[in-house]
């Protein structure tokens, strides 16, 4: 049913590494979005193409300052995982934001207290 908007996936996120950051030292964050990343090339049991539904854009910001932005394509595996490095010079708020097909949008925030 390509003419209907597919239901938005219910997503969950896993964000690791925010509580072990050190002040002024780059630290690794490991971020997973639970999302099927339907690549638009598969067929269902009736031969219909399953409409593409992927997350196409990811942005991580620290207090509004860009850390990393990524454009994702269908070749990214399901449940897109991104590990990135952030350097925080003091307490702040990290935001993680995804956009995708059919108006998909998801946002997470984490307060950090680098030691």
């Amino acid at each position: 049913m390509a003419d209907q908007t597919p239901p938005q996936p219910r997503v969950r996120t896993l964000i690791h590494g925010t509580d072990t950051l050190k002040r002024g030292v780059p630290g690794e964050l490991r971020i997973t979005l639970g999302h099927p990343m339907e690549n638009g090339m598969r067929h269902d049991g009736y031969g219909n193409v399953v409409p593409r539904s992927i997350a196409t854009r990811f942005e991580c910001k620290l207090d509004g300052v860009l850390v990393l932005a990524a454009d994702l394509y269908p070749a990214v595996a399901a449940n897109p995982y991104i590990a990135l490095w952030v350097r925080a010079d003091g307490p702040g708020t990290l935001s993680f934001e995804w956009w995708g097909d059919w108006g998909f949008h998801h946002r997470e925030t984490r307060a950090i207290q680098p030691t």
Partner: protein
Amino acid sequence: MKHGPDLNRPRRQLLGAAGGLWLALTTRPAAAVSAPETLQAMVRAWAGGRPVTPGRVLLDVPPLVENGNAVPISVRVDSPLTAAEFVQEIVVFNEKNPQRDVVRVRFGPASGRAQVDTRIRLATSQQLVALARLSDGSQWSAHVDVIVTLAACIEP
């Protein structure tokens, strides 16, 4: 209008032109060497006519992949990420996916290290290329051959 060779033109000039053509062909960017044509075309389009040099980019992929549905890749660029010299963009292309793009990454001022890890799909054994554009305009590449034993993108 003449279609044949211009017989009035001196022979020496023609030979010189041929030599110049040979030189232009043999001094292409080294990154394009040994890459499949599909990848070369993507690299050329991304490079925008400027040279791409192998090196400074580290593309870490397991050489033998058992499950093509989630292949961990890691791209790192040898750059201090200061205000004077930073990484503008990292892209990864594959060779055999109908859509060659895998991921395009930009780094911001709050990033501490020009490294990104992710997981990708690979349908079959092929070559991957990671490209990086630095703030000074230089462009760098890394090619990796991957062998996939269980493919992604096959109907379950």
